[in-house]
């Protein structure tokens, strides 16, 4: 048997049962809200600047004398979405190896950051880019031209990694 004593309805007092005072309270609240500051960000003009902990588009670090990457292929191996393709080649510089081809398929990338975590050289890091757009599938495959980013612009992320990784 359903016991319906002391339900919410029975605990309402007379004015609450009349509804109208409660409705007036609600109306007062929404009216006040109209004049409060807005939370909307006017996106294309006002951009959000993420913190160093933000995992945006993965990029390759570009130092003064060329890329840091030694094309070990660990990122490609660890990538759960199979988004990264690396082809190694030899170079005369101290590192001896560099990636002749480095491609990330941005349609596959899930921004997990495992590539960054596994990288022994700190050569691939997550940037702050969050608005990534393309018009075709071919465009979505980012080559070295789009991936290489000067180290100066990645300082915040590198510091974050040094502190917390």
């Amino acid at each position, binding site marked *: 048997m359903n016991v319906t004593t002391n339900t919410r309805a029975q605990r309402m007092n007379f004015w609450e049962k009349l509804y*109208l005072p409660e*409705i007036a309270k*609600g*109306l007062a*609240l*929404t*009216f006040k*809200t*109209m*004049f*409060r*500051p*807005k*939370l*909307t960000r*006017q996106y294309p003009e006002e951009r959000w600047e993420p913190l160093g902990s933000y995992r945006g588009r993965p990029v390759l670090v570009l130092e003064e004398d060329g890329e840091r990457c030694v094309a070990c292929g660990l990122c490609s191996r660890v990538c759960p979405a199979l988004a990264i393709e690396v082809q190694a080649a030899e170079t005369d510089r101290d590192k001896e190896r560099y990636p002749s081809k480095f491609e990330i398929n941005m349609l596959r990338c899930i921004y997990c950051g495992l590539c960054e975590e596994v990288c022994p050289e700190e050569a691939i890091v997550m940037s702050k880019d969050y608005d990534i757009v393309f018009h075709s599938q071919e465009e979505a495959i980012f080559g070295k031209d789009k991936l290489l980013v000067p180290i100066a612009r990645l300082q915040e992320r590198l510091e974050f990694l040094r502190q917390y990784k």
Partner: protein
Amino acid sequence: MQDAMSSFVVTLIKGAIALNFALVIAAALVYLERRISAWMQYRIGPNRVGPFGLLQPLADVLKLYTKEDVVPYNANRAFHRLAPLISIAVALSILCVITPASYLLLEDGTKLFIAVAPNVNVGFLLILALTSIGVYGITLAGWSSNNKYSLMGGLRSSAQMISYELAMGLAAVAALMLSGSLDMNQIIASQANGRWNIWFQPLGFVIFLVASFAETNRAPFDLPEAEPELVGGYHTEYSGMKFGLFYLAEYANMFTASAVMTTLYLGGYDLPLVPQLLGVQEGTLPRVLLELATFFGKVSVLLFFFIWVRWTLPRFRYDQLMNLGWRVLLPLGLVNIIITGAIVFFVR
């Protein structure tokens, strides 16, 4: 013959002005609704198209016109096409008896009444009758779509309209007892100099207001189009400008409902003392403009209230809706009539 012809032309012109005005108001209301709802939710609202986003309704209509017009395979095509027309036609035809200002005294001494159909002695009855026809548009839309959700929306709408029309009529009866006429001009004249019906009929006003919300299918009584339960209710199967007509009809209905309430309870175009202070004579152009401003000022307050309530209150459950209509508003309306009748009988 000459006289009938000229009055026909004058009515035609007045009708065209009223129609265009109402449609512009409906478009402006769509914009205001989106803007005000945004403000009430800590948002900004449409502000990209034109200055302050004012051209947003124009962009919306352009979009609706370019959309594909889909008619469901098993729908009754004729009625499916007819339904939105009924909705919008009824919503706009109520305008003919709305009296936004009294009259303009012409040079040859004749009075040019501002209403499209002035001095209709059944004015208020006409409004009640026309709003009852409005439900056909919605019910027909629900039925002809051959969709169970649309049908439920249509049926809910007819049940709701019938329930709340009674309460609305009863509230109006009490107010009309004070005015002693159904003619819109007479109703406003009887409330002249601030003796507005709302001061004598606060209960009647509240009943009428609540019933108008139900009649216009506005939240918290928007059960015919309850999105979570009925997909979109009666206009689920409508697309393009046919849907646009339903949308427009909703706002046109809001406008007419506000205009009727202004006439019946808020004294219409009456603004106490100000015309005397400004020294504008009845029948002159400044006076007419003042009356128009007064009328539309009152109407906009009510329109804002419509929008305000929609973004404050959640939707009623169906049984709550019926309880409120039949067990609260109807008895209250009857009590209101008896009290008003007794006072009118003994005091006058």
